[in-house]
């Protein structure tokens, strides 16, 4: 499955409009092999101000190509132009989802906290995939960070040597415990000597975010 990861730096006073635009566009975005999977904010006090992260899936690169044309000259062009007017910057990148297709559903649910890790690695893609799989396979199920998905660059070793890992923070209680003793390292997630740099984002999902 192809995954497009978008990092939006939103104009603060358009925050609510921006989220509403995405939520209302879900039916149009979920078409022709594409789907909006996830919408989350970097919460105030936890990272970049007014940064939103969206994840969109596509069945293959043909579906991605068609979606790009819908945004440029097609039925989504007007919506896309409006959204562009609500943000300062967008960094958009394409990846291959290395885990099972996520379960999505309609309707609201309580927002949840996640940590999205960008790991810069020192080994080629094939070894990265093997090592991440091994680490994730060893999870005990009671760590603070619960790996729910990970993805690698569409162009593999031709691109930056990195892997993105989406961790769910297991519970409010786990978060409180982590900050009750801030000297204690967070357990769970993906670690190893092959990771040479770790950049993270603390994120809170919108209550309508489809991925459950």
């Amino acid at each position, binding site marked *: 499955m192809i995954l497009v990861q978008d990092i939006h730096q939103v104009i603060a006073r358009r925050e609510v409009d921006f989220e509403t635009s995405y939520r209302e566009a879900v039916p149009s975005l979920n078409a022709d092999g594409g789907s909006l999977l996830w919408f989350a904010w970097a919460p*105030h006090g*936890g990272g970049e*101000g*007014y940064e939103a992260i969206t994840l969109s899936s596509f069945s293959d690169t043909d579906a991605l190509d068609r979606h790009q044309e819908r945004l440029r000259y097609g039925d989504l062009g007007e919506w896309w132009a409006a959204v562009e007017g609500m943000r300062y910057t967008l960094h958009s990148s394409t990846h291959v989802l290395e885990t099972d297709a996520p379960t999505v559903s309609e309707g609201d649910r309580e*927002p949840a906290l996640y940590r999205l890790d960008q790991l810069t690695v020192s080994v080629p893609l094939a070894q990265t995939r093997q090592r991440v799989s091994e680490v994730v396979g060893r999870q005990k199920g009671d760590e*603070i960070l619960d790996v729910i998905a990970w993805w690698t660059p569409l162009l593999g070793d031709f691109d930056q040597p990195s892997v993105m890992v989406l961790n769910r923070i297991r519970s409010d209680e786990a978060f409180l415990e*982590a900050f009750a003793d801030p*000297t204690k390292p967070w357990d769970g997630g993906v670690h190893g000597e092959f990771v*040479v740099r770790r950049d993270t*984002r603390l994120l809170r999902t919108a209550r309508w975010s489809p991925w459950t």
Partner: protein
Amino acid sequence: MILLHQVHSLRPGAGPEFEEVTRDQLLPLTASGTSRFAFYAVPTGAALHQDEVITMIALEDGNALGRFSDRVRGGDLTNTVGRLATLRTDVATRLLKPLDYDPSQLRIEDIPSAPSHKPSVSYMHDFVPPVIGQNRAYVDMMREHYMALTETELSGVVLRYSWETVWGGGPVPEMFNLSEIRSPTALLQLVGKEIPGEYKQIGSWMWDALSVRDRWTTRLLRSATWSPIA
């Protein structure tokens, strides 16, 4: 007071040695009547960059800055800072001065000259570039509005220090806040729960303050247990 503020990006696995050299060599060498190693902080599990260290060295005035420079460039600090440089991949160096509403009003003599022994404290460390042309308006709004908010209104997060970069000391203008997280519950409320819509309406602090700043970067840090100020 001039604060030498540095964000160090460390080489993989270099964290323990970087901390040891800073605590056992740089800190005692820096201590004098006009300079002190003040602050050492590392990322919490929720920070943006997991391989960073934030340090601050307090210098009394321009003379102290000059003397510190001489010692670093060709004196008794040269070897120590050279050792630290081999342990990192990058560093961002800034010179800061306190803003007039800075709650700490820190003085050199208030900073212990030896490592402390106290619990680690969690902080929000904000890096704030004001809206272009709104630098002084930002300072006025922080002084007159933010500082008047109660701890309850601030969700249990208490501003301890406020500085700005000075000319010749990094990106200008840029503002820095270091706020203590008084309880994990307060932090969870802030980051884990949606902010009610009424907090974002015209006339609210959140809305009005956007006229002077609408972008920032927050690092969730914790002080080292030996950090002189925490």
